[in-house]
C-alpha cells in the first residue's frame, strides 16, 4: 500500500496512538490491525477465521513477510492475512496472468499475487517508497517469484499515462489491485478502465474506510481517517453509478470493492 507524502505524515500520527513510552522515554509501537478487527461484530470472530482458515493455509513466505512487516512502524497499512488469501483465490479463479498493483508497502499482497499467477505471469508494481518494498523483497525472492515483478518507484499516474500512450496496452491487463492514496483512486480508475481488459477485474482496497463512511461528519475519528473519508465516499458513489463496471463490495479487511469491466 503506497502513501502520498500527506498520508505518510498522517500514518505515523495514527501509529503514535498505539505507541507506548517505556522507562527510557523511547517510544515503542504496538502492532494494531485497525481496519478489519473493528468492522466485524467481534474480534474473537476475526481471530477464529484467521486461526481456522487462514494461518494453517498461509504459505511460509507470506508468513515471514507478515512477521517482518509487523515490526515496521507503519504496519497498519499492510494487507491482512485473510485479504491476502482472498486475493490469491480470486487470481486463481480468474486465471489472471498480466496484473498490476498500485501501492505495495512491504509487499504482502504483491507476494500473494506473485504466488497465484502462473510462472510467466507478470505484475507491474508501483509505490513511491522503494525502501518498504525492499524490506519484503527477500521473502519474495526466497519464494522464487520475484522474477514476475516489475517494480517502479514513484507516483503511479505518470506510469499509467505512459502506458496509455501505447495502444497495445489498452485492454491488456487481467487484474489490477489498488491499495494506495485514496485521493487519487478516481484518477486511477479513469485510466484503469482503459488498461483493464473487457471482463477484467479491478480491486479497490479500503472502501469501507474503518466504517467511517457511514458516520456523521462530526463523529470523533482519527485525523487520517477524516482526511480521506470524503474521497472514499465519493469513490463508492462513483463506482456504484459507473455502468462500465459491475461491482461487489466485500467486508474483507477494510472493505474491498471488486469491479468487473463490462463496457
Amino acid at each position, binding site marked *: 500500500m503506497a502513501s502520498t507524502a500527506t498520508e505518510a505524515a498522517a500514518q505515523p500520527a495514527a501509529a503514535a496512538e498505539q505507541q507506548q513510552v517505556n522507562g527510557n522515554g523511547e517510544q515503542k509501537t504496538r502492532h494494531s490491525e485497525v481496519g478489519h478487527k473493528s468492522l*466485524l461484530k467481534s474480534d474473537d470472530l476475526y481471530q477464529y477465521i484467521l486461526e481456522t482458515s487462514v494461518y494453517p493455509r498461509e504459505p511460509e513466505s507470506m508468513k515471514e513477510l507478515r512477521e517482518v512487516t509487523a515490526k515496521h512502524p507503519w504496519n497498519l497499512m499492510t494487507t491482512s492475512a485473510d485479504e491476502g488469501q482472498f486475493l490469491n483465490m480470486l487470481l486463481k479463479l480468474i486465471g489472471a496472468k498480466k496484473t498490476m498493483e498500485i501501492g505495495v508497502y512491504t509487499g504482502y499482497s504483491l507476494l500473494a499475487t506473485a504466488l497465484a499467477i502462473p510462472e510467466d505471469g507478470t505484475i507491474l508494481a508501483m509505490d513511491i517508497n522503494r525502501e518498504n518494498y525492499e524490506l519484503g523483497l527477500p521473502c519474495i525472492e526466497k519464494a522464487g517469484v520475484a522474477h514476475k515483478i516489475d517494480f517502479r518507484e514513484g507516483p503511479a499516474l505518470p506510469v499509467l499515462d505512459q502506458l496509455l500512450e501505447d495502444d497495445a496496452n489498452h485492454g491488456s491487463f487481467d487484474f489490477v489491485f489498488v491499495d494506495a492514496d485514496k485521493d487519487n483512486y478516481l484518477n486511477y480508475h479513469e485510466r484503469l478502465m482503459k488498461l483493464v481488459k473487457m471482463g477484467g477485474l479491478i480491486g479497490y482496497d479500503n472502501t469501507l474506510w474503518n466504517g467511517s463512511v457511514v458516520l456523521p461528519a462530526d463523529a470523533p475519528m482519527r485525523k487520517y481517517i477524516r482526511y480521506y473519508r470524503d474521497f472514499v465516499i465519493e469513490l463508492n458513489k462513483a463506482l456504484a453509478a459507473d455502468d462500465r463496471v459491475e461491482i461487489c463490495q466485500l467486508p474483507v479487511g477494510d472493505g474491498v470493492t471488486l469491479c468487473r469491466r463490462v463496457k
Partner: protein
Amino acid sequence: MATGGRDGSVPVVHSDKTLLRSRNLYKQYVLETTVLPNEPECMRELRILTDNHEKGIMASPPDEAQLLQMLIKLTGAKTTIEVGVFTGYSLLATALALPDDGKVIAIDTNPEYYELGRPFIEKAGVAHKVDFRAGLALQHLDELLADEANHGAFDFAFVDADKPSYVKYHEQLLRLVRVGGVLVYDNTLWDGTVALPPDAPMSDMDRRISAAVRELNARLAADGRVEVCQLTIADGVTICRRVV
C-alpha cells in the same frame, strides 16, 4: 433457520443478516450505496415477497447474491448446482448471471417455496436455465453421480441448506464439480457463534448447528483437495476451489 431467544434468556441469533459490527454500515451504506441500486427489478420483487415470508430469514441477502453473480461471471461458469433453494432469490441471481445456454440444477425438499419464486424467474426470462428437482439433495446428488458423464461436469456449486449435511454434500460435490471449479458454502460463521466459548448461552438448535459448522470449517481447512477462503459477508461464506 429459526432464531433462538424466545424465552428471553438466550441471545437471539441471526437477528440481522450481517456480521459487521455496525448495522448502519451494512444497511445504510453497503446495501444502499453499492448493492441495491444495481439489484435487478425481478430480484427486488422476489426479495420483498420473501422478506414477508415467515421463514424469510433463510433467504440469501442481496450483497451475497451480488457476490455469487460476480463469481459466476468471473469464472465463466456455465453448468452449476444449487443445494437449497427456498423461494429462489440466489437461484434467480445465478440464472441471471449464467450465459444464455447456462444451466443450474436446483435442489430443495420444499417445492412450495420454490413455486413462490418461480414466476419471478419466468418473468426475468431465465426459467429455461433452471432445472428444479424436489427432494433430498443427498439422493439427487447420488443420482447425478450414478451417471459418469456428470463427474467433473459442473463449474460451480452453491450450498445453502441443512448444515449437518454439508460435509456429505462436500464429498458428493467434489466429484461433480470439475478440477478448478468452485464450491461455495453459506452460513459458515453461523452469526459468529463459531467463535464463542463452548458454554456461551444459545438455543439447543443453534448449539447443534454451530457445532456442525465448526466441524465443517475445520474439515475444509484441512482438505487438501480444495483451496479455501472464508469471507465475512452475510452469515459467512466459504469459497472452495477444487485443486485435485
